[in-house]
Each structure stands twice: as structure tokens, then as C-alpha cells.
């Protein structure tokens, strides 16, 4: 189920009540959480719970046998078993159709007419997220970064814990499993602050992303006829930058709030990314748990920066291309990743070339704005459904469109730009702060008023919205 649904409201109230019930032992409460998490996942498509079980059981035993193995080769075999099973499931459900389509296209270009049956497989929601979470368990054990969990229940709950299950933050076992060792119950202040985070997250998702930004994006990116004017193309792309941030960061914030209400801590997933100066900075701020996962389990094993520039650039580009593909089985996502890889490579080269240079305040700001603009260029490939669509948008953004037409009405455009300005401005203001620091330094009447306004706006938006964009990944 999704956080912005009435079902979740009822579900969460029941989970909270059970978790705080005095008559359950901690062991029973963990079983309750596990069952609730399966229910949460089954609310999309019950049979897919089996995938969760497969992933859980395979990785549990792979780690157990890895530890018991006497020889390094045996350890490796168990690690590879885990990787093959997890990536195999991900590949079958997420990339099967994509691979088949490309194979057909390749065969066709070679003059072979191949017409396979349609690949009609439904993508299990969140499979990319929990596959990465559970893979990090066996990989950490294999790399001897972590000991395996002592109790199967704790491990199963780590995999399925509903706040992070379908859209992250992608948690590592060392972050969550220890939290299950002893009784966790939110203090009143944790509960209230957790609820406040949920209000903030849902405000971002329901009001900003779905209510005000999404219609502007759809008007241009989903237009059936006509080519947008430069203004419309830019506004729609900037609006998408806000929409995807509010959608995904809204989810993460809500998830962190939900976990906090239950007494658990989840890691930051965003750190005001639109105030990034440079792309390595951007990736330290955007989807932190994914970028660090890719760094730890892909970039570093590929050689990282330890084997000379050529290997470093290859590892960088390979990581970002695969990171792009992780987001979706389409070449547009690969290009999105490739653009980020290129940005990172160029930045790395420039940093080496101008090693001693320190930007002044104005140059710093200009570099920040340049980063934001270049990130927006990549969003075009992320949002457009085809390369044709992306090319049309880029032409329009460059002012080279043939017979462009206006597409966005004035007021929706004004709303979108006000929201984007507020987001970017807030990110710069919060650049070197945490949310908690800012909240602590704000007068309580203002904190209360802002929360009240956000809650009332969620109510006025009737609390409903579409599914989170990242569920499809």
C-alpha cells in the first residue's frame, strides 16, 4: 500500500497500537511487525510475497554457509549464489522484456524476423529496493564487514520492514538488524516528531508533487500534439525536478517518520540536493543510500580510484550506466546515467586540472546554479518516454523548436516556479544544516504554524495522490 492512502492510515494506526500494546513481548512485537510488513507488501499483489520469502531465505542461508565455510572458494560460491538468485529475479521481472525487445531489434537489424510471445510480466513493486537491501547483507558478510544476524526473525524483519521495503531508504543490515535486538518503543517526543516528519513528507508528495507540479509536467511531457515553446519546456523540466524531489524525498521523509513513530532510526536519503555544487556533491545529497550502495558494491569492486585514471573513469561510467539502468529498463535511463557519469568524469578531470583553485562566493553560487541546470538536462531523459520525446524537449529548451506553441496556463506556471524557487532557495539555506537543526532553531509557534498549514493543505488536497514515482523502480 502507499503512504498517501486511507488504507495506510488505518494500517499504521493498527500497527502503532499493536507495537505499543503492553501485553506483547518484544519477540511477539517483532512477529507483529513482520506480519504487518508482509501485509503491507501483499496489499499490491499477494503472490509477490513469495519473492520476498525466496530472497530472505536464500540470503539467510547463503550468509550462514559463508560463515561456516572453511575455504575461501566455498564462501565465494555462496556469495555468487546469493547474487545470482537476487539479480536473477530482478533481471527476470524487470529487465526480461527490455532484453527481449532489444534482442528482437538486433535480430531485425540483421535481417532476421523474430516474433516472440509478448513478455507480459508484472513488475513486483519495490523489487529493486529490497533486492539491493538483501544483497548488501550477503555482500557485507562476504566482505567481512558484518557478522551475520543471529536470529532469522531479525533478519527477515530487516528485509521486509515496511517503512523501507518498497522505496527505501535502502538500508544495510548493520543499520537495522541491531535495532531489533532489544525493545524499541518511541518516546512521546519521538512519536510527535515522527508524526511531524510524516506531515512534511506527505505535504511534499500530496500537495507539491501531485497537486501542483505534476499537472504542469504532464501538460508538456505528455502532450499529444504540438511542440512546446522554450519557456514551457523549461518550466515543465524545472517542475519535474521539483516533482521528483518532492515525490521521492517526500517518501523518504515519511518513511523515516513512520519508523521513528515505532522507535526505529532510518538513515538520511536526501541532503538538500539542489544546493549541490558539482556532481560528486550532488550524489552525496541525492538518493544517498543508493549512491553509496553503488559506490560500495560496484564502483569500489570495479577498481574505484585505486588503479589509475583510465580504470577510475571506466569504473565511474560503468557504475553510473548501471545506476541508470537500475532506475528503469529503458535506454533513456541508461543515457540519464551516462550523462551523470560524464558529468562526474569531467568534474574529476577539472578538479585534477585546477587542484588549487577555490571558488569565491559568487563563483560558488554560479557553479551551484550550473550544477542545477545540468541536472535538469538529465531529468529530460528521465522523464521523457522516448528519445524522440527527449530530443523534442531539448530542442525546445534550446529555442530551436519549429513552430512551438504555448502549453502551460499562466497561473499553473506561476505556482510551479514559486514552488521550485522555494525548493531551491530552501536547499541553499539548509545546505550545511540538518532539518533537525533548522527546526530546533525555529520558534515553536512558527514550527507549529508551518506544520498546521501543511496538515491543512494535505486535508484540503484530500490526502490522495498517485503512486510514488520510485515504486516503478
Amino acid at each position, binding site marked *: *500500500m502507499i503512504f498517501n492512502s*486511507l*488504507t*495506510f492510515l*488505518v494500517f499504521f494506526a493498527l500497527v502503532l497500537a499493536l507495537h505499543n500494546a503492553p501485553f506483547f513481548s518484544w519477540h511477539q512485537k517483532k512477529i507483529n511487525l513482520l506480519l504487518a510488513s508482509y501485509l503491507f507488501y501483499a*496489499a*499490491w499483489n499477494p503472490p509477490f510475497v513469495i519473492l520476498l520469502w525466496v530472497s530472505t531465505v536464500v540470503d539467510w542461508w547463503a550468509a550462514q554457509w559463508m560463515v561456516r565455510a572453511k575455504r575461501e572458494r566455498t564462501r565465494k560460491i555462496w556469495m555468487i549464489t546469493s547474487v545470482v538468485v537476487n539479480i536473477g529475479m530482478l533481471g527476470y521481472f524487470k529487465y526480461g522484456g527490455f532484453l527481449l525487445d532489444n534482442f528482437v531489434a538486433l535480430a531485425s537489424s540483421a535481417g532476421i524476423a523474430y516474433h516472440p510471445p509478448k513478455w507480459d510480466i508484472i513488475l513486483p513493486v519495490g523489487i529493486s529496493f529490497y533486492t539491493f537491501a538483501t544483497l548488501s547483507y550477503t555482500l557485507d558478510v562476504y566482505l567481512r*564487514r*558484518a557478522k551475520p544476524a543471529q536470529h532469522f526473525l*531479525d533478519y527477515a524483519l530487516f528485509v521486509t520492514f515496511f517503512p523501507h521495503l518498497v522505496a527505501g531508504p535502502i538500508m544495510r*543490515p*548493520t*543499520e537495522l538488524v*541491531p*535495532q531489533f*535486538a*532489544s525493545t524499541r518503543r518511541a518516546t*512521546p*517526543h519521538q512519536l*510527535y*516528531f515522527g*508524526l*511531524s516528519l510524516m*506531515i512534511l513528507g506527505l505535504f511534499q508528495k500530496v*500537495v507539491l508533487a*501531485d*497537486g*501542483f507540479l505534476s*499537472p504542469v509536467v504532464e501538460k508538456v511531457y505528455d502532450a499529444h500534439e504540438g511542440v512546446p515553446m522554450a519557456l514551457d519546456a523549461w518550466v515543465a523540466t524545472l517542475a519535474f525536478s521539483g516533482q521528483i524531489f518532492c515525490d521521492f524525498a517526500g517518501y523518504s521523509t515519511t518513511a523515516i517518520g513512520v519508523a521513528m513513530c515505532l522507535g526505529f532510526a532510518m*538513515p*538520511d536519503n536526501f541532503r538538500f540536493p539542489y544546493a549541490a555544487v558539482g556532481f560528486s556533491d550532488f550524489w552525496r545529497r541525492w538518493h*544517498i*543510500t543508493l549512491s*553509496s550502495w553503488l559506490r*560500495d558494491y560496484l564502483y*569500489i569492486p570495479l577498481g574505484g580510484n585505486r588503479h589509475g585514471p583510465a580504470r577510475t573513469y571506466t569504473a565511474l561510467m560503468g557504475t553510473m550506466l548501471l545506476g541508470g539502468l537500475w532506475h528503469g529498463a529503458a535506454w533513456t535511463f541508461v543515457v540519464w546515467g551516462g550523462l551523470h557519469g560524464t558529468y562526474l568524469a569531467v568534474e574529476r578531470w577539472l578538479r585534477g586540472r585546477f587542484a588549487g583553485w577555490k571558488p569565491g562566493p559568487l563563483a560558488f553560487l554560479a557553479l551551484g546554479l550550473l550544477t542545477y541546470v545540468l541536472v535538469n538536462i538529465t531529468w529530460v531523459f528521465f522523464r521523457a518516454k522516448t528519445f524522440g520525446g527527449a530530443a523534442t524537449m531539448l530542442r525546445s529548451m534550446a529555442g530551436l523548436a519549429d513552430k512551438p506553441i*504555448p*502549453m*502551460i*496556463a*499562466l*497561473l*499553473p506556471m506561476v*505556482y510551479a516556479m514559486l514552488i521550485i524557487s522555494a525548493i531551491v532557495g530552501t536547499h541553499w539555506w539548509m545546505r*550545511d544544516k*540538518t532539518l*533537525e*537543526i533548522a*527546526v*530546533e532553531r525555529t520558534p*515553536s509557534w512558527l*514550527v*507549529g504554524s508551518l*506544520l*498546521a498549514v501543511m*496538515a*491543512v493543505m494535505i*486535508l*484540503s488536497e484530500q490526502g*490522495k495522490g498517485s503512486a510514488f514515482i520510485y515504486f516503478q523502480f
Partner: protein
Amino acid sequence: MPSSTSSSDQAPKGIVQREGALPAGLRRTASDRPGEAQPVPTRDIPKQPWGRIIIGVAAALVSAAVALEVNARERIGLHAGDLDNSEIAWSDEKLRAAGAPAAIVGDSRILFDTDLDRFEQLTGVRPIQLAIHGTSALTLLETMADDPDFKGVLIVGLADTMFFQPFDGYGGYVKKWHEYRAPYRIVSNQIDHALQRRIAFLDSNYRLSVLAHRLDRDFRPGVEGPMDDIWKLQEVGEHRATHLWDRVEYDPAWRARTRWAWKGFKEKFPFTPQLIAKGQARAKAAVDKIRARGGEVVFIRPPSAPQLRVNEEAQVPKAKGWDVLVSNTHSIGVHIDDLPAARGLTLLEWSHLSRKCATVFTDAYVRRLSALTPRLPLRADAPPPLSTEDCVAGHGASS
């Protein structure tokens, strides 16, 4: 040393800490710890009077809910019991249609203009309402043709232009209706409807963002803004029983706005002979499919005001659209032109009947159907026929 995944780490309290090279007030994240086991995260609680803040937020929410409800009922004219007509609500009815003796598909005209209660009073059968506003009846006809479980009478209500248009329209989602059957959606819809039976302001037409967008009075030349959209027009009851919103009846400004939004039904694309022929062929195939398994299909053409009819006729003439459709599919057809009992009904915004007149129109077309097909016989205790006089008083007829 490997980090343990089996010990309990206590999160430190307090916020303002300097973590390594990070600026004061920032905490480390996974991005600051490359190639390491990530420790249990720290989540700080800002020092604030959270209890008082949450009470204040709750009070604001309750006050806002009361204000929104009063505004919805007193100023906007919304009613409790007006349910969202969502994809999931449609799919609920689609499931009920399996094995049902009768179902209705079509666009908003047959949706608004059919009184399901009257239908049931006359025949003892309560048809499943599957019509969707802004949707080609042809799309829905084909969807029902693809459902092997439906073997009843399918009543296809159509507006000629919408029937033959080259796209599905608003209800294109019916082609993948199974995707809306996720358990959480079903439960959410049930909760949603339970609330809407008691609360009036829960109407998707009056969401904050929708209202904010409607403030745009086509300020930007060349852009079709929200003013060009169709605003709230219907009220939906249980099982998608739908009728024209009563505000259209009592608010001349609202009525005028809706008329303006129709833009005379002057479509932007040409209804070429090929387009119409393609529609006829699709309809024939779908009807044959339903009949092959024992079902039946009948066509209904509800009324539209002369201001719209003239343009509809210019684009899809009755002789080329309706007449060919009925003869080509060998179907029973009840056209408003052939239904004297339903002439002169009130079409307040030119395209749909008032609630009372929908009852009269239903009475007229169901009686005609009963005469034409043995599959929908009139009950012995059916109420007496209605006439135009039963609904037009106080409104004035359409023409």
C-alpha cells in the same frame, strides 16, 4: 573490525555535534563512509514543545475540516453521499457485471440520463452502470465483448461524435482495469466511500490544487487553461448511479459555464468516412462476439439540445452513423428522435438531462426496449408511464 548486526547501538542524543570534517550541525550519512559497514543511524529530536505543537496541529485540522465541510455544503452545494467515480469503483461494477442480466456502457449521456431505480421498477432488473463520462462507448462495448462472463443485455448509450472518435477518451483505463484491483486500492476505495457518505467536502473536484488552477481565467493567450475543462457536473451514488449535479439546475452561472465548456461540440478532427467505417466494423465485431455467447446488444441515443445536435449531425450524420450502426449490427436501437414520450425534456446545459427528466427518459426508453426485446420484459406491477410534464415544470424545455 566488522560491525555487528546483532548488538544494540544506542543512538546519541542531542543535535549540534561536529562529526569529523563535516560542518557543525551536519551528521554523517552513508556517503561519508565509503567501503564501510554502515552503523545504526542517529536520528535527533529537535528540542521543541512537541506535545503542544501536535495538539495545535490537531486543533487546526479539526477546525479546517469543519470549515471545509460548512463551505462545501453551504457555499458550494456539495452533498454527503456523492461518491468518487474512480477507476476502482468502475472495476467493482465490472466484476458485478459478470453474470448480470443487463449492463450499461457509454458516455456521460447514458450515465447521467439513466435512472437505475426507475429501470428496476419497470423491469425488476437493476443494470450494472459501466458508462464513463468523456469516453467512447465503442471502447466500452469492446471491453464487454472481451469479457466471456458477460452474457446479458448490453445497453450501449452513445453520443455519435464520441462513439466514432479515434481515441478512447477519459475511460481508456478500462483496457487495463485489472491493474486497479490491488487490495489496498479496494480497501482505500471502501474507506473513501464510507467517509464520503457522511462528509461532503471530500470531492476531487474541490481539491486545493484544482481550485488554485481554476483561478486562471485563460490569462495566457493560446493556452487552453482550466477554464476550458469540464468542472463538476455529476453526483454519483451507490454502484455508480449517476445524475446531473443539482447546482447546474439552480445556478445559471454554473450552467452557462458548462455550456461554454462544451464549445458546441465542434470537434477539432474530421470524422472522415473511413473513420466512421472503421468504427462501424469494430462495433459489428464486438456485437457479434457478445451474441455468439448468448448475450444481446441494444443501442440508445439520448437527447442533446439543438445547439449541440446541429454540430453533432454535421460531423456524424445520423444516416451515416446511427442508422448504419443499427442496421449493420442487426441491433435494436432506440433513438431520441423516435421516442415521442421523451421529447422536450430539460437539457439545462445542452448535453445532459436534469435529474427528474432522466427518470422520464429512462421510463420512455426502457418501455420501448421492453416492447422490442423479450429479454427485458416489463413487470406486471410496473408503475404507470411518465411524460415530459413530470419533469419540465420550473425549468423550461431545451429548445
